[in-house]
């Protein structure tokens, strides 16, 4: 059992259910007889899951405090989590045996208060054929019921309408493509964690997918977390924040807009982040204790003029100045969110370029100066 119990009280809390399925016994590179499929092992999945757990424990500062984390991890190595100075060894594997108990424990916590926030995160393999099936470590164990090592995400999502938490966040970092194995079968006997019933409770429950339907999600093999999870954590830390009543907050709507604009502006191998589910823009997820930082990129047209341009960004609010000497590349830097005066000066003083006020606001700021 890997329950990380930060606080089990019945006050409103955030309760997380996090699954990192990286080792697959019956896929390429696993210990069992591999299925005839292209899919293999995913080292990035447990790394990504652990990164989110780490963020929740150390940096999360939402409208409700952290309650519990249910963690299932299938990784090559053993892992432990440090909570308040105590090391907790992650013992539960992300397999079809452990998932039911972990889900039940999570739901009990979520049901304790309707102001709770339920957070679900999965990183691993997925197959979508009508419904999305998320694959667990023992996927393929039973040759006559291969999908018994998976669970039906869509039915799980619908079933969670019965959960008492009015705010629910779902993050799915997996493929959504259809391999031949799935096209052979009309019906897939996947695990149902909770049966959907007719129940009329409204909820704020956005789903963030790392990729679109019929598409592949890519995972790094160099020990890094996935691009989706990396961006998720950056967004939660401020890249998806906006100012509300003098506080910088990350809301579900802003997270959606920012994740999609940041990930999809430069997609890797056609992987496009998409969002779905029952959602409003009103659920606050994280409240920042200081101004967020904003990636800034300042260029010039024509590009060649950059070699003669000196840039300066000045903030009266932060009493700071950022300077860049002439260079062949556009100026890329990270600054605290604020309005700035952008000045540009030709090194040979051949042209006068008027200063302008610019607003460096999350998720990013880009400006190309037209030098006539």
């Amino acid at each position: 059992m890997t329950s990380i119990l930060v606080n089990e009280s019945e006050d409103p809390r955030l309760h997380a259910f996090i699954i990192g399925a990286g080792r697959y016994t019956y896929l390429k590179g696993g210990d069992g007889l591999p299925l005839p499929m292209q899919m293999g092992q995913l080292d990035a999945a447990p790394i990504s899951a652990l990164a989110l757990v780490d963020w929740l424990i150390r940096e999360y500062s939402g409208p409700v405090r952290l309650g519990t984390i249910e963690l299932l991890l299938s990784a090559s190595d053993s892992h432990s989590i440090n909570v308040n100075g105590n090391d907790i060894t992650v013992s539960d594997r992300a397999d079809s045996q452990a998932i039911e108990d972990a889900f039940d424990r999570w739901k009990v916590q979520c049901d304790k208060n309707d102001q709770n926030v339920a957070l679900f995160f999965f990183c691993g393999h997925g197959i979508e054929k009508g419904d999305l099936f998320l694959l667990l470590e023992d996927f393929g164990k039973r040759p006559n019921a291969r999908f018994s090592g998976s669970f039906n995400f869509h039915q799980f999502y619908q079933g969670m309408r019965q959960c008492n938490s009015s705010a629910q966040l779902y993050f799915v970092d997996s493929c959504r493509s259809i391999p031949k194995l799935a096209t052979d079968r009309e019906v897939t006997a996947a695990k149902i964690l909770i049966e959907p019933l007719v129940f009329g409770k409204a909820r704020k429950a956005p789903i963030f997918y790392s990729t679109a339907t019929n598409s592949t999600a890519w995972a790094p093999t160099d020990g890094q977390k996935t691009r989706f999870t990396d961006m998720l954590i950056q967004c939660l830390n401020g890249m998806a924040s906006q100012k509300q009543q003098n506080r910088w907050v990350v809301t579900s709507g802003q997270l959606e807009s920012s994740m999609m604009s940041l990930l999809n502006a430069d997609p890797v191998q056609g992987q496009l982040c998409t969002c779905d589910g029952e959602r409003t823009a009103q659920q606050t997820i994280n409240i920042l204790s200081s101004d967020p930082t904003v990636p800034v990129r300042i260029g010039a047209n024509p590009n060649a003029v950059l070699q003669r341009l000196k840039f300066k960004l000045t903030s009266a609010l932060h009493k700071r100045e950022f300077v860049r000497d002439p260079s062949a590349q556009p100026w890329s830097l990270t600054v605290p969110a604020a309005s700035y005066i952008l000045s540009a000066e030709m090194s040979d003083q051949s042209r006068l370029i008027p200063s302008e006020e610019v607003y460096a606001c999350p998720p990013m700021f880009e400006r190309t100066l037209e030098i006539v």
Partner: protein
Amino acid sequence: MNISISFDNLPDAWIGYPVRVRFLDSDLNPVDNSIFLGSETHVAHDFTPGKYMVTIRMPSGEAMSQPVTLDDHNHIVRFTVPEKHSNHEWLSEQTFLGHAKFVKSFMSPNNDPWNGLFELKIWRQTGWAGASIKLEEFGTVDAQYQDGQHGTFNIDAPLKETLVASINYGGSAEPQMYICVPPTPKISTARQPKTVVDVSILPEESLDIASRLKASINTSSLSAQSLISYLTTGDITSASVVSDSLIHQARQHFYEKNEDVVGAVVAGYFLQMTSNIKFLPADWFENLADRLFPSIADGPILYAYRLMDDCGLQPTEMELDPIAKQLQSASARGLPIFSRGLRLLQDGLVAMRNSYNKMGRTGKAEGLSELLTRTSFYLSRCNPSNPYTTIVPIDPTNAVFQLLEFVRAKR
């Protein structure tokens, strides 16, 4: 003070679309508003004097920004629309590749089938020289004119119901893809009476058959079109900002018996998606499902979800039966116009089956299982990334033919 926004270079076809405008003050506090694109549009907000960054967020996802200093006088903020996009592409891709049964109310304000030309505009990677399409009702049609990779097919006939068009490409004699051309939505007399369907075919070496064809349809409801586009690009904040006008219109349309079915359905789905379906009364959905548009599947699906919203933790059989009736009605009408409808139909049937089973009404549960099997078949071949129901064959030599037989049988 009064603030207006004006657009230079605004194409005529864009006029009237609601878009989101954001004012960011120098402390980076945002104020969101919606405006209708036009030559000079007033912004309904009481601003305090100061410096602002004004950003127009287009439904395509593009943004245009201008700084402005507001004092006590009236102001006009001017934007120049870039010329790099065509009239329809800025709205982002909208795909219709599915089945909608003929309904009179789709056609014209006076319910007469609209007679005349309709235009099918298809984008093909390799152009249209020597290529043709075949429409079930009208035989083979050659492109009347080409504009780069776009071929335009004018068909001089009434568009009464969904047409099935086969497309040959790559030199094959056998059709490799079928599309269903929807009947035109309500024709607005102020606009050109044409249905424009854009179908894009990606390079033939693409293995991803789902992405080979892209179709877009322009509806006559500008608010609905903006909302669909924002939702397609995932901009829920902008969608929420512009949805007010659509929901207001939808409410008005129904009480005034104006028959803008696409706008009404989009408003219904948006409310369901944002857990605000109770915003519209149940009789509004009843009208949508049973009275005004008795032939489209989306109406009873939305009505079923409106009824579900009234259920508590332990719904009674008397509460469940009307919901089941609506889902059965939807299943009998063929595929819904919007892919979200197909997803909701499946989810609704699963929940109903489980709820009947839980109260021991296994006969009623089994009755829904049969519908569920059929819905699952289509859902597993549907591409939900496209807002309109898009069916792609998993096995192109088999599934697409089964599908089209179903479409024909339902007519």
